């Protein structure tokens, strides 16, 4: 036991580990809040699609060799979010198909670019790093932490101020429209913010596992809780706890950060599913 504490103490004496923890918890918090709305609106796939786009965008950024990759990744991903939302409605290619198309397309282009214009000698490590999250969470600069902090504050303020309207739009778009709430505007906002979170979260868990951060906490909370408010709060708590546990475990057992966090989320989901089943059985009796 003392061993564990001294190991942790050793690691947390380094600022980059502390940065990683702060960024990780913030991302987990933001993604879980949005996740509730996305899962309920049947938009879970957007997260998945956008994460692949972000991967493609990152390959483009790497090839162009700009110093601050965010300049390319962020606008491209936000643009795709808007596109996916628009095509989801009234075009010949249906919503789910268009997402699948955009996401595999971006994945293929990204991988191809990385192969044609290799930035380092070890391509497969590069690809693996961006898909499954690398140690890059431990190489965060202070500026990255500030960016993440600012984005998180924006997301949190948006979510708190518009909480009631987000609820209304999520629950019933036609009614919201009829009562004069600009539901298309809110959908757009949600998509854009999702894109921002995904780009930030790519450092933490990698682009393949981001959807897990968005959907698992919300799904777990929905197994047990019965009101929108309790689901939202519980999902935030689950997500933060799992991210914290995941990061610390990954330090102690030297496992990959992203995969450990997602496994923790999966564990939470199983536990909450069991609780939910037991509770509903009791109610029937």
């Amino acid at each position, binding site marked *: 036991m003392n061993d564990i504490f001294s190991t942790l103490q050793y690691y947390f004496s380094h600022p980059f580990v502390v940065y990683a923890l702060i960024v990780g918890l913030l991302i987990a918090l933001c993604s879980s809040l949005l996740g509730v709305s996305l899962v309920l609106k049947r938009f879970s796939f957007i997260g998945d699609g956008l994460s692949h786009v972000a991967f493609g965008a990152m390959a483009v950024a790497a090839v162009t060799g700009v110093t601050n990759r965010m300049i390319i990744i962020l606008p491209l991903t936000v643009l795709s979010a808007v596109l996916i939302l628009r095509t989801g409605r009234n075009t010949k290619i249906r919503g789910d198909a268009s997402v699948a198309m955009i996401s595999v397309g971006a994945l293929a282009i990204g991988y191809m670019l990385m192969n044609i214009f290799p930035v380092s000698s070890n391509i497969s490590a590069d690809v693996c790093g961006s898909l499954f999250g690398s140690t890059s969470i431990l190489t965060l600069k202070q500026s990255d932490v500030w960016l993440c902090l600012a984005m998180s504050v924006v997301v949190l303020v948006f979510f708190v101020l518009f909480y*009631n309207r987000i609820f209304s739009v999520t629950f019933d778009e*036609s*009614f919201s429209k009829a009562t004069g709430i600009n539901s298309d505007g809110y959908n757009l906002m949600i998509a854009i913010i999702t894109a921002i979170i995904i780009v930030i979260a790519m450092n933490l868990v990698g682009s393949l596992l981001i959807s897990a951060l968005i959907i698992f906490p919300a799904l777990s909370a929905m197994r047990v809780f019965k*009101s*929108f408010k309790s689901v939202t709060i519980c999902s935030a708590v689950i997500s933060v706890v799992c991210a914290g546990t995941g990061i610390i475990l990954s330090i102690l057992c030297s496992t990959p950060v992203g995969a450990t966090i997602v496994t923790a989320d999966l564990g939470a989901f199983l536990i909450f599913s069991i609780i939910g089943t037991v509770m509903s059985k009791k109610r029937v009796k």
Partner: protein
Amino acid sequence: MSEQIICSNAALGYEDGIVTEGLDFTVSSGDYLCILGENGSGKSTLIKALLGLKPQISGDIRFCGDFSAKDIGYLPQQTPVQRDFPASVEEIVLSGCLSKMGFLPFYRSAEKKIAAENMKQLGIEDIKKRCYRDLSGGQQQRVLLARALCAASKMLLLDEPVTGLDPIAQTELYEMIAKLNKKGITIIMVSHDISSAVKYASHILHISKKQLFFGTKADYVKSSVGRRFLESEVGGDE
């Protein structure tokens, strides 16, 4: 009886064509208007036009006096998203008040009071902490009715409200709507269910690609359109 909506020779549709035209009808305060028509006859387009979400192509839809589209409480059809939505009854009813709040982010006590009154009126105050997805179909419709009343108290616009309910719940919902109508709330209901329309409504609007009939219920039953439609329903699947 003051007029609330006057629709004169309106045509509705999208950029690529007219869905329904020749709409000529008047809704007065306290009316119970039932809009009948087959699928694709332009009922949902008419609803959008009444709610002010879709302008008419030609003709005129006019709100009279101080009545406006904001005074219409809307009960949309249920979507698959809602069936397993984790939300309490209270949260849903309160969300009807959002239109009254301007840019305020949170509910004030005034909104909570309106929500409480409407839950009482519809007999759902004792289930206000329950989860929406655990309710019966009839209870769910009452919750949505209460929400609509929070948004507007002069007129209710109901889109096929009894779809998917069992016969007992259907009758209960019709009685509840009739009770609200007696309190002076104007009702506009889009429906397939012609026998109930004839039983409860005061006026009937029957549309196909164009308006087939508008008038009181008594006239409708005698009209050739009404007779044909009534016979086909009774002789049909019921």
